[in-house]
């Protein structure tokens, strides 16, 4: 039981990060049909910028805010300078552009920051909390609570604000949204900024646990993408459930089956789910209209 609990906490903490990356994928995908493979780089920017700012003597909360702002600027620039000029190109072309962007951002981070691994001090100490035989780091609660707050805030934003509704409308039908006067280009740019902020927050929250370096983005993009697909592309709830599920699968796989093949276990489950539900866990069965 204690083991089970330990694996759960481990899986949920890592899974929360995957979930936030998957959520970032989903927001951009819904607004623009672009699968943004530079999503992991936002996480990297959040963590690395905070590390370097705190090292330069900026207090942690302020450093975190600046880092989030920096990621948002990068997100906006990515949209304005790379995605917007290629408007109308095929989705696969846009995907390659985002892959190019992720290589570029990694290269930039090597120059601006460095190629070392870095850590941040835990926000509220390193003394593990004992719970039912499991040892839980206080930072895990920060990650889980942070992810929860982000999800709630997004939910409120999309359902309670005009801008949020405009984003939803654009996601549902771009042409119709444009016809009712929504500036869809602005909405897409906005979605990049929001995704960047989510990624950066995830990066800051998790750095004290998982460390960070200029090239952590690739793996996160990979896992986040898989999580988004597992949940059902375009479904925010699916992204969250998918992310947590991938995290838990890895933890249980490593704990109960084989630590060598834990990633394989996660992917085998994803493949199995997709074979049965070709639209992911929360995907709708689509009827072909001809």
């Amino acid at each position, binding site marked *: 039981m204690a083991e089970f609990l330990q694996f759960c906490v481990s899986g949920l903490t890592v899974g929360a990060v995957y979930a936030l990356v998957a959520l970032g994928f989903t927001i951009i995908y819904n607004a623009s049909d672009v699968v943004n493979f530079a999503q992991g780089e936002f996480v990297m920017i959040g963590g690395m910028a905070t590390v370097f700012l705190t090292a330069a003597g900026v207090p942690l909360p302020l450093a975190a805010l600046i880092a989030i702002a920096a990621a948002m600027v990068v997100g906006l620039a990515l949209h304005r300078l790379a995605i917007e*000029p290629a408007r109308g190109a095929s989705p*696969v072309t846009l995907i390659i552009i985002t892959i190019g962007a*992720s*290589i570029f951002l*990694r290269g930039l981070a*090597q120059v601006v920051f460095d190629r070392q691994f870095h850590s941040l001090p835990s926000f509220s100490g390193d003394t593990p909390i004992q719970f039912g035989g499991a040892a839980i780091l206080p930072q895990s609660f920060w990650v889980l609570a942070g992810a929860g707050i982000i999800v709630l805030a997004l939910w409120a934003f999309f359902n309670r604000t005009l801008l949020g509704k405009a984003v939803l409308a654009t996601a549902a039908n771009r042409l119709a949204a444009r016809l009712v006067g929504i500036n869809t280009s602005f909405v897409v740019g906005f979605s990049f900024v929001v995704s960047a902020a989510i990624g950066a927050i995830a990066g800051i929250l998790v750095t004290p646990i998982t460390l960070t370096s200029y090239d952590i983005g690739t793996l996160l993009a*990979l896992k986040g993408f*898989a999580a988004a697909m597992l949940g059902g592309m375009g479904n925010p709830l699916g992204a969250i459930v998918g992310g947590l599920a991938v995290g838990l699968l890895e933890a249980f796989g490593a704990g109960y089956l084989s630590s060598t093949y834990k*990633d394989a276990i996660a992917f085998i489950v994803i493949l199995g789910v997709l074979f049965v539900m070709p*639209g992911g866990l929360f995907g709708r069965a689509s009827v072909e209209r001809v």
Partner: protein
Amino acid sequence: MQALFSHRLAVPLVIAALVVALSFALPSSFYLRVAALVWISALAVIGLNLLMGYAGQVSLGHAGFFGLGAYAVAVLPAQFSLHPLLAALAGALVCGLIAFAVGRPILKLKGHYLAVATLGFGILIAMAISNESWLTGGPDGMPVSRMTLFGWRVRGAETWYWITGGLLVVGAWIAVNLVASPTGRALRALHDSEVAARVAGIDVARYKVRVFVISAVYASVAGSSLALVNGFVTPETANFLHSIELVTMVVVGGMGSILGSVAGAAILVVLPQLLTTFHEYEHMLLGLMMMVIMIVLRSGIVPSLAALFQRRRK
């Protein structure tokens, strides 16, 4: 002139001419090696382009087949003293069989779901190669014994330049044959409209599996060539980043363009060699150039330039 260029054999002939012409122009065996790497990548990319560009089915796991082909010529001669040529053949066969077995369930998926399924599949192969060290030497890789043909040890950059160049020409020839055949038409048809293709009598699932198998064999042969050229294999040949690189080559060169496959491979193999002078800015520049190429030539280098050229003439 137009008719000449639209002939089925124009593309393989152009590639053959390129291989021959470059052999005179390249000054040292380093350049020959880089060219051989281009030919090898182009071969894999042509196969992937048949799958992606013509049949419209994405695969983010093709490096898995590439890796299996590479390890076939490393493992089989070492374990069973099989001749490398037979080993390459066996590798291609195994890749074909695996693609056939997994193709049907995987290719039922569409779009991004297909992407993530192939991605997962490729990662499984890469993990197996990296972890089963007793067979593969693990993450540090394993040596590949030199190939001997009729008592002659195949070695040297120039020899491999011609062998890989020849393979590429044959690969391109087979690809254009396929594209122009009933099978090729069926594949292009299901890309544009699966339902119309089915109504025309095309067994869509079966044709998807066919092209998946063909592209897996291309990747495997390319992988075997690389292993033989290098005399050493590491699991990186099979990993996710290599899969992404292959897809990038397809898209940068041009989806549905055989010549584009060679162009895409050439760009992504040669560019890093040119950018080494920029040291720490190397990766930034590589990413930047990828973005610029795709924004300016959004259908890929060859199709976009061809369209531009035609508009000029009009």
